């Protein structure tokens, strides 16, 4: 049986069919503007922002990352400018060296946590989604209403429920969770950290952990140095009050040293307790091979009364720590910099040359969730077409041997939602752009 699939395109958005573009991978199946080959990051369906031609990944909402960076830079700047000279003179020159190393560690790991792929799972291809739907429908349920979409697997003698993700059209692997802020399934999902402006997952957890540990060392170190500085001044001068009211002549750059002390003390005092606490908490998580998500939900705490243990733990603190922090670095699964395949058949499966022609006169449903590529529906990667299936009208779905079963009506809410996005998409800007966020914002606002 042949798997054929309608390629839904907006004929109004299509220019006249163009000749074969120069890129070797691009075919002339559908009308395509002859322009540079596009990379996969440009049509990524999640709510992420990409910089440096897809090398840098960030969440759409940067959260309070600028604030985090600002606090770190300001506090460290004040430390190096005002405390270091005094302490080098009175104590040792190791102080700025240690401070410098910690500062560099903190900034680098922060940037790595914020700008690396946390372990995003690419969405299922349309064929995969169809295959899974078939399996779900075949499990004894004859009606067209979707059955509860959970699958049970046994992992190390522990029963684990895998949930079906409606957005990504797949059963989530164990420990994977869908982040609503980033609209992605993330492997070994820990949490979405607003301070860092990104999800924390399998690939960047070690960066995050190093960041908070080195930050706690840095804040404690600065706090200690500032307190020592104050103490030494108070000793040398006529008491603490006099020390705080240093004459401006001593520090021509600062009218009053009190501002310097206060700022550093306040920031460091609050940071030390919160960051130290967070580091301690994550050290516990690392040692027991848990994620914040699992800990909060109490997945393995046995609160349900059953004898549940963490099936992922190696039952040894050292091995747990090593596997989480020093284990092999998993690759990024989303292939941001790969080129979009021009031939949709290789991605969407089983589409013959003549199908798109047939599609033009059928549904005018363009599904380019969060992208600008209305014209690229002929070359839509699986990421896009799969996200569209959620709300496609029944005739637009795959016409395989199970067409009757598959043409079950999607829920009206879904089709309305998808339809709204489609309307927005078709009315939206069709010109190319390098920033996914601009267009996701447009489609969001239009919708």
């Amino acid at each position: 049986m042949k798997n054929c699939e309608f390629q839904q395109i907006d004929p109004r958005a299509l220019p006249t069919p163009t000749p074969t573009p120069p890129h070797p991978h691009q075919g002339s199946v559908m009308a395509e503007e002859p322009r540079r080959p596009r990379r996969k990051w440009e049509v990524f369906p999640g709510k992420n922002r990409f910089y440096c031609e897809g090398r840098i990944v960030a969440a759409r909402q940067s959260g309070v990352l600028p604030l985090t960076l600002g606090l770190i830079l300001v506090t460290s700047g004040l430390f190096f400018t005002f405390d270091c000279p005094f302490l080098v003179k009175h104590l040792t020159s190791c102080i700025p060296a240690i401070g410098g190393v910690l500062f560099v560690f903190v900034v680098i790991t922060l940037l790595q946590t914020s700008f690396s792929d946390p372990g995003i799972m690419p969405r299922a291809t349309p064929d995969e989604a169809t295959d899974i739907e078939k399996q779900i429908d075949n499990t004894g349920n004859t009606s067209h209403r979707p059955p509860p979409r959970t699958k049970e697997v046994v992992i190390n003698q522990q029963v684990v429920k895998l949930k079906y993700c409606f957005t990504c059209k797949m059963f989530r692997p164990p420990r994977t969770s869908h982040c609503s802020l980033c609209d992605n399934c993330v492997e070994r999902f820990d949490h979405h950290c607003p301070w860092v402006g990104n999800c924390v997952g399998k690939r960047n957890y070690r960066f995050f952990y190093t960041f908070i540990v080195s930050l706690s060392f840095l804040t404690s170190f600065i706090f200690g140095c500032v307190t020592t500085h104050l103490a030494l001044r108070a000793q040398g001068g006529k008491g603490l009050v006099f020390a705080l009211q240093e004459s401006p002549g001593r520090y021509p750059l600062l009218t009053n040293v009190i501002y310097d002390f206060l700022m550093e003390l306040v920031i460091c005092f609050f940071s030390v307790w919160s960051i130290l606490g967070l580091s301690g908490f994550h050290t516990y998580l690392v040692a027991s091979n848990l994620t914040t998500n699992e800990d909060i939900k109490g997945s393995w705490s046995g609160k349900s009364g059953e004898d549940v243990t963490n099936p992922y733990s190696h039952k040894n603190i050292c091995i747990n720590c090593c596997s989480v922090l020093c284990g092999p670095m998993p690759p990024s699964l989303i292939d941001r910099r790969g080129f979009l395949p021009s031939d949709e058949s290789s991605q969407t499966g089983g589409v013959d040359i003549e199908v798109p022609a047939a599609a033009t006169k059928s549904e005018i449903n363009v599904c380019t969730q969060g992208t600008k590529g209305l014209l690229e529906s002929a070359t839509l990667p699986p990421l896009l077409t799969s996200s569209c299936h959620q709300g496609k009208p029944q005739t637009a779905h795959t016409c395989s041997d199970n067409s009757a079963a598959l043409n079950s009506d999607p829920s009206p809410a879904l089709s309305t939602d998808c339809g709204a996005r489609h309307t927005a998409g078709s009315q939206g800007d069709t010109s190319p752009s390098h920033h996914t966020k601009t267009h996701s914002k447009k489609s969001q606002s239009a919708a």
Partner: protein
Amino acid sequence: MAETHSLQDMRQQAAVAAKVFLQRDYTIGTVCQFQTKFPSELETRIDKQQFEETVRTLNNLYAEAEKLGSQSYIEGCLACLTAYTVFLCMETHYEKVLKKIAKYIQEQNDKIYAPRGLLLTDPIERGLRVIEVTIFEDRSLTR
């Protein structure tokens, strides 16, 4: 990629009849392993043992990539000491094994699967979720 070229070549000659997906096997944990259950759709096309051998080799390769051994620990510790900047310049062990896997799949496709009208897709292109086996129409049969 070479695989895409061979896929395009095949598709120019034959239409896709079906696609079979081998799902992940989570019984050991979150390590990348695939189910070795032989799909019924492939019964007429390929020998069961041959297919299972391919999947088993792939599983072994992925296990090697994710192995927690001295090499991965040294790599991890070195990376930690350099604030993980080595990842920007060095190819990780996992990436090296992925290249090996890609080569193996290419070999298997050329030698065993393409002559039988089948095509294996590298799981990394599907987010390490499935091994996709594309079944092309048998040209010897008249439609």
